[in-house]
């Protein structure tokens, strides 16, 4: 392994949350501007987390903290593998394990709100997981490798060949980022029927761990999106990635929340129509 790859991996561990926090801050500012408000400072998510460390942590069960560290650990592992230029499938599996840990933490607390939240989160995982699996599969069929470093130095035409998978991935990105219309399990705003979903019973430093995990997740998802455009070089790929990422804010602000059943139907329909069709057509267009 080249020292360059290692440095990128360790840069993720250090700078991943910084980039993720800035993305979250810009997200909140953009949301506010779309609602004709001034909005909080860009660093607001950082202030929030630093504040949470000043608060007391109410421990419902000691297990919750263990599970949350599991969530954070596997999130970091997933991103580390990705930015190391290693196996994309492995990165995806680590991301899934991390999501499961968050559900476990919510199930461990006895609040009915967080239990419903994690049930819905599991349902959402069922919704987005098939499409997310298709992403590494598509890259494999185009570049003959699951390795991120090979995908980055792949054919510049890969985004055209994988257009359907890109559309499907953008759809699932809305779910992963907990944006409307798919913010069923938990969201940045208080829910009328679900309070705060998964994080209802988490407070203080426990909630801070969740937030930091989400910052890492933001960077990872941005990295995944970047992979589609990566062969064009960072100067073209990065702006496209960031614009697509923030297009999710527009989707968030213009959609009402769906029920879990329509979410499942819609996401599987997208998976079949865009993802599977793209895979089936791939032999003819490569």
């Amino acid at each position: 392994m080249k020292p360059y790859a290692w440095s990128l991996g360790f840069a993720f561990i250090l700078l991943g949350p910084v980039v993720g926090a800035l993305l979250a801050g810009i997200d909140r500012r953009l949301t506010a501007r779309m609602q004709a408000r001034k909005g909080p400072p860009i660093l607001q998510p950082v202030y929030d987390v630093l504040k949470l460390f000043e608060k007391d942590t109410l421990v419902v069960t000691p297990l919750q903290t263990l599970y949350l560290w599991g969530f954070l650990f596997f999130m970091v592992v997933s991103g580390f593998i990705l930015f190391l230029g290693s196996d994309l499938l492995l990165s995806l599996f680590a991301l899934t394990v991390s999501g499961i840990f968050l559900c476990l933490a919510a199930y461990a607390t006895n609040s009915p709100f967080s239990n419903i939240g994690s049930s819905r989160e599991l349902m959402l995982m069922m919704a987005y997981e098939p499409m997310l699996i298709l992403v590494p599969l598509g890259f494999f069929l185009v570049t003959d490798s699951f390795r991120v470093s090979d995908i980055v130095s792949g054919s510049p035409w890969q985004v055209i060949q994988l257009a359907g998978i890109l559309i499907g991935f953008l759809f699932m990105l809305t779910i992963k980022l907990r944006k409307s219309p798919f913010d069923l399990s938990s969201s940045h705003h208080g829910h009328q029927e679900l309070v705060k979903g998964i994080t209802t019973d988490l407070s203080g430093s426990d909630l801070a761990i969740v937030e930091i995990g989400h910052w890492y997740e933001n960077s990872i998802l941005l990295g995944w999106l970047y992979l589609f455009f990566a062969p064009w070089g960072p100067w073209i790929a990065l702006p496209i990635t960031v614009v697509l990422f923030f297009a999710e804010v527009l989707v968030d602000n213009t959609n009402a929340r769906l029920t879990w059943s329509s979410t499942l139907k819609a996401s599987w329909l997208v998976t079949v129509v865009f993802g599977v069709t793209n895979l089936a057509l791939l032999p003819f267009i490569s």
Partner: protein
Amino acid sequence: MSFLKKSPWVLHYAATSCNGCDIELLACLTPLYDVERFGIVNTGNPKHADIFLVTGSVNEESRKVVENLYAQMPDPKVVVAIGACALSGGIFKDAYNVYGGIDKVIPVDVYVPGCAARPESIIDGVVQALDILEQRAKDRKRQRKMVAV
């Protein structure tokens, strides 16, 4: 400098309010006043809240809820009573089922008068509560150190 001042999350509960103060309180979140620019977020969850905003007077039904919500909020926390009813019971003071102001059941730190309280005065009340919150945070930090030793 405490970060509590930069990101106070509020919990709003209408004890037995006529909803006049609640409307004014929610007006603070609208584009005109937009308190989110100070990092103030309206959480519906006591476990995430730093400031407890209560409107309306207290009766037996709402007493349980007010006490429960207050108990569920992690320290450091402050309570702001909003509107004439929350201060003393207001025009409902003599009603047979009304206990009186919020301070009959939980300790109140800031009183915001008005019927209904104006958004400007509510924001002013929250800003005053922030100083108390910062002091509490310092005290709490010292307590934690003493426990650790």
